């Protein structure tokens, strides 16, 4: 049982800890109080928020109708799901038609006419979500591969740190949207796409913009984590005459992991925020483009759909944070190094 509770705690599902303890029969009164604290109050608060939203939204009238309330948003979410299914049906019927056509050519012996082509319909809402998630991970991975080594170097060497410092201070506050035109130009000039390229240009543009903004929290936190290692540990390393590489892997990394993970969590959050803005501005595929397109369409469903997107962005951001939190707990073993 304790093991199970431990897993719940590590994965951040603290909501269910009291339930598990209840099931195990630990002091029911205490556990119920806990349950009310971790589960009851948030649920009540959220219900109040929904009620207020429903009440207030109908008061604001825009040229696209009133601000959508919870029910309108739910309807639009259902609509988007319908849209998605409809597009999928269209796509599968396209592939069936293609199969039939090609089979006919096969029969007629006109093999040179057989072509297999991808469906060219517009991406659905769920495709856009998936695109955004892929993009943010790509950007985040690149950022991690750049920032962690740099951060370790900064933390180990004061010289290197003073060399990097002005650059970090200069570029950290720059908005992603300022980078975007430059990134777009550079990618267009240097990255030549062919039919079998791994990534499209728009994907790279968004991902690199994410990288440039989510680099900094990881870099700074890693440097901080490495430079604040217990001096005794480092001295032990000296006594044992460990090589530089062994020192980094055996001493530096394990002891600075908690801070590195704090940096990574911040980075992913920033990256997700930046990505939506970048997609909106550059009209690159993803949730940001979806929001902008709906805004341009100006139909009576548009506001509801944008609201669905806003909630989706929030939920995904929250989930990403949870994932990072779990990983952090898995890798850092609390205080027992």
């Amino acid at each position: 049982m304790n093991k199970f509770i431990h897993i719940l705690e590590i994965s951040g599902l603290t909501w269910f800890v009291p339930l598990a303890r209840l099931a195990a029969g630990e002091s029911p009164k205490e556990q119920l109080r806990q349950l009310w604290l971790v589960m009851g109050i948030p649920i009540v608060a959220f219900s109040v928020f929904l009620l207020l939203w429903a009440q207030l939204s109908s008061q604001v009238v825009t040229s696209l109708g009133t601000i959508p309330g919870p029910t309108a948003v739910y309807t639009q979410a259902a609509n988007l799901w319908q849209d998605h299914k409809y597009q999928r049906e269209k796509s599968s019927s396209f592939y069936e038609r293609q199969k039939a056509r090609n089979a006919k050519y096969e029969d007629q012996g006109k093999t040179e006419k057989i072509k297999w082509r991808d469906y060219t319909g517009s991406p659905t809402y769920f495709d856009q979500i998936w695109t955004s998630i892929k993009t943010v991970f790509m950007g985040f991975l690149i950022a991690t591969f750049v920032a962690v080594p740099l951060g370790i170097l900064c933390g180990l060497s004061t010289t290197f740190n003073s060399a990097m410092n002005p650059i970090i201070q200069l570029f950290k506050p720059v908005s992603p949207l300022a980078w975007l035109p430059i990134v777009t130009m550079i990618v267009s000039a240097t990255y030549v796409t062919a039919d079998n390229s791994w990534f499209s240009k728009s994907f790279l543009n968004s991902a690199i913009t994410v990288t440039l903004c989510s680099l900094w929290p990881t870099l700074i936190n890693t440097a901080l984590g490495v430079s604040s290692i217990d001096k005794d540990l480092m001295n032990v390393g000296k006594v044992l005459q460990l090589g530089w590489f062994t020192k980094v892997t055996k001493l530096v990394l394990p002891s600075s992991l908690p801070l590195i993970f704090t940096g990574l969590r911040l980075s992913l959050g920033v990256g997700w925020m930046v990505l939506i803005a970048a997609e909106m501005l550059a009209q690159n595929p993803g949730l940001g483009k979806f929001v902008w397109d709906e805004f341009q369409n100006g139909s009576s469903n548009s506001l509801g759909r944008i609201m669905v997107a806003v909630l989706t962005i929030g939920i995904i951001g929250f989930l990403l944070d949870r994932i990072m939190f779990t990983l952090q707990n898995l890798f850092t073993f609390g205080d027992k190094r």
Partner: protein
Amino acid sequence: MLSALLIATTASNVIAEELKLEKDELTFGFIKLTDMAPLAIAYEQGFFEDEGLFVTLEAQANWKVLLDGVIDGNLDGAHMLAGQPLGATIGYGTKAHIVTAFSMDLNGNGITVSNEIWKQMKPNIPVKNGKPVHPISAEALKPVVEKYKSQGKPFNMGMVFPVSTHNYELRYWLAAGGIEPGYYGPGSSGTVGQISADTLLSVTPPPQMPATMEAGTIYGYCVGEPWNQQAVFKGIGVPVITDYEIWKNNPEKVFGVSSDWAEKYPNTHLAVVKALIRAAQWLDEKNNVNRKAAVKILSQPNYVGADAEVIANSMTGTFEYEKGDVREVPDFNVFFRYYATYPFYSDAIWYLTQMRRWGQISEDKPDNWYHDIAKKVYKPDVYMKAAKMLVTEGKVKKEDFPFGTDGYREPQKEFIDNMSFDGKKPNEYLAQFPIGLKSGETVSATGVVKK
């Protein structure tokens, strides 16, 4: 809601005697306007697929981006303003040789003024049975413009692009009512076409027209649907005239590709035109029976995306002027009737004459120059080849196509100012207008320079 949209896309299994396609995966650009319909229909009804084409349709941010996309090859072709291929080919704005073998539609625009201006105009408009007599001439607007001028206030109006149909229609209507819409020439007021103007015309993107008028930045505008009806719905303005009343059945959009593209992929070009002809026919057949279905398709977020009822207003043959004053305009959007899709040289020449009339073409040009440019840009032979193939396949009727034409429409007389336009004599046509550049005249930064 969407299940109703599931119009079975019955891509007919009769595959035409196929052309050897040089390229079968294509990307076309469009702007979110009702008249991109032929592209959406060709895709949704499977006409592209019938020709063995796999097409992606991409909405573009504005006309400039769209044209650049076609020039640098990101787009294989696009839904364009009729003036764009002509303007690009003669080097007005961006220089590039663009050709068209397919006209997309006739009519479809309107001129709207704000409530304030309408209130001042209305006393000058004759009334019959309690309703304003149509078509409303710009003469009713003239006293209003003069009042603003005498008070030293600029009278601003909006249109969508320097070489757009809307720009020429708005200028035509103003000039027909005795108002100087301004000339293009050297200098900063020359590039925006405001030299010696009574009304200052400037560019505003279509979707922003109503908001810009509401903010008081412009007092009126000329734009395609649904942005005129939107002003009525929002109660911020009144459409005073449709372009159908300015020039009956005027050509509006074309399907443009770059000249190099057309040379490199001749069969692909033919196949695209075939699919588009069938789409246009579908849109108009049996007295517009398919328009409702078309409206549903266009209201999808990846095409026009506006509400179906707003798009339906003009697509189904009615037009609302003043609130409650709904009139029948059955030909407000024409996609196929009256040989709408054939690229007539005379249509190209009308646009060129207007470019000359307002100074976008700075020097006089002889008649044969107009004919040469029209032949350089408009490619009716490609269109006719495609039409012949469709007739052979039994997909269209022979009488729907102007077989045997020399590419010039009969002289057209149905203009608001009762002028007549003979495409064979552009300079003679230009000489008729009281307002506009005459032969030998040029524009300087201060005004028109006589010979």
